[in-house]
């Protein structure tokens, strides 16, 4: 009997069955002295505790980085990192950046050419209301 390799019967689809957040760690760096960290310091005091409590699956590390601009860095399960400088930003604007890092996949940004991205592309293409026999309403 010949040995047959295991054939792949399915491809992992994150969110089908279980969803694993791609962002595993967020690092926050601030400066006590610099004015560009003013919004970041307020964010750490006010908005970060609530955000961290809502996301127990993410590790949060907060540490000073003296005489430097404030920075938020996202670490992802594919090993990539995504740093964003948040100098002179308001706390609410920093929260938007943190949400962006949370929702990012960690992959490099790619230009999307096709209207549908799928691992199981349809042979019929995208349905169009302007083609075919029409639909009786």
């Amino acid at each position, binding site marked *: 009997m010949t040995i047959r390799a295991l054939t792949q019967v399915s491809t992992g689809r994150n969110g089908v069955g279980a969803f694993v957040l791609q962002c595993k760690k967020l690092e926050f760096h*601030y400066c*006590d002295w610099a004015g560009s960290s003013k919004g970041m*310091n307020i964010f*750490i*005091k006010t908005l*970060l*505790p609530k955000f*961290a*409590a809502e*996301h*127990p*699956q*993410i*590790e*949060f*590390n*907060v*540490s*000073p*980085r*003296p005489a430097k601009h404030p920075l938020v860095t996202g670490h992802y399960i594919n090993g990539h990192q995504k740093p964003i400088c948040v100098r002179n930003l308001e706390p609410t604007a920093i929260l938007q950046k943190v949400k962006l890092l949370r929702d990012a996949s960690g992959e490099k940004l790619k230009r999307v050419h096709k209207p549908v991205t799928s691992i199981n592309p349809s042979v019929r293409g995208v349905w169009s209301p302007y083609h075919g026999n029409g639909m009786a309403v």
Partner: protein
Amino acid sequence: MRNLVRLRGSASALSTSSTSTVRTAATSSSASSSHTQRRCLSSDVRAKKIHIETDLVYPSKVRVAPLRDNITDPDYVPADRADDLEEVGGLTNWWEQPEHWGNSKRYVGFGPTEKVRDPMLLTVLVRRAVIEAVALRKFSPNIMRPEGLLAVTRGQKELLNTVEVTPIAAGDGSVTLGGEKGDWVKVWAQLSQVKRESEEVKKGPAPEPELTPAEAKVLVQKWGSEWKSLKLLDPVIKFYAAKRIQRLTGHIIPDGKLIGIETVNSLIAYLAKPPKARKLAEEIETTGVVANLSNVAFSPRRVTPLDKDISLGRWKVMKKELEKRKLPVLGTEGYQKSNLLRWAEGRAA
């Protein structure tokens, strides 16, 4: 035994006592006068000794080691090199050491060095300051420089005597003392003692309050909260109270804040407010906003690459390998980057 001492500097010109002696020549007018006049003056020039009484600490008299021929110790071995000899003495940084300056040269602030932070103690001291400010406002037109009376604190007995006077509200709600003449006289008698006290008492540092926070709490509870709602409408009373508070507690109230303080309660609240944290880490630790979050790690100092190696557990391996190769564990110890790359790129000299 070896001669292991060598003296630094030249201290032979310095005297030993705390009284310095300065030799001065004649007046400068002789230098600009004519030759004849100069000759006449030269016979009259006498070196004058001026003794200056001072409490500065001068270097001690220079002690000279005995000569080699005069040493009778048979174990004595004269040093043939100066490298290993211990250096003693010298005048380097002599005046940078605070113990060499007398008490008269030291700075003494108007208030105590440590600010009073306990809210109960502050409440008692504010009550004393307000009562004395009201009394001083009434009697100040009769004396010169009335604010000078606020520079003396005295002891706990006077403190308790003053605070047992109950301030009341005047017709407009502002603070005043009781209508009985005894209260005014009692407070003013203690304030005006300053004329009979010595200058040292006036200028000395403010003593620490002998009242404990527990005792202060008993007093504050006994007084109730009605007196705290009294208004501070008169700016002169507010100024006297602020100056007295600076002397008693060490808190300096800026003019901008003083204008906004309208009641005794707001004055106490301003003073009892804890100081603002200087660093974000202190504030986070004080408030404890992230203490209950297990997924948040807060570092009060910069996280270095070394910290990351230690947290991963690979630092001990790196340290062991570096020590085995006799390389510096931390820093470079003068080692530079290899020149091979620079040679390859044609950048090496």
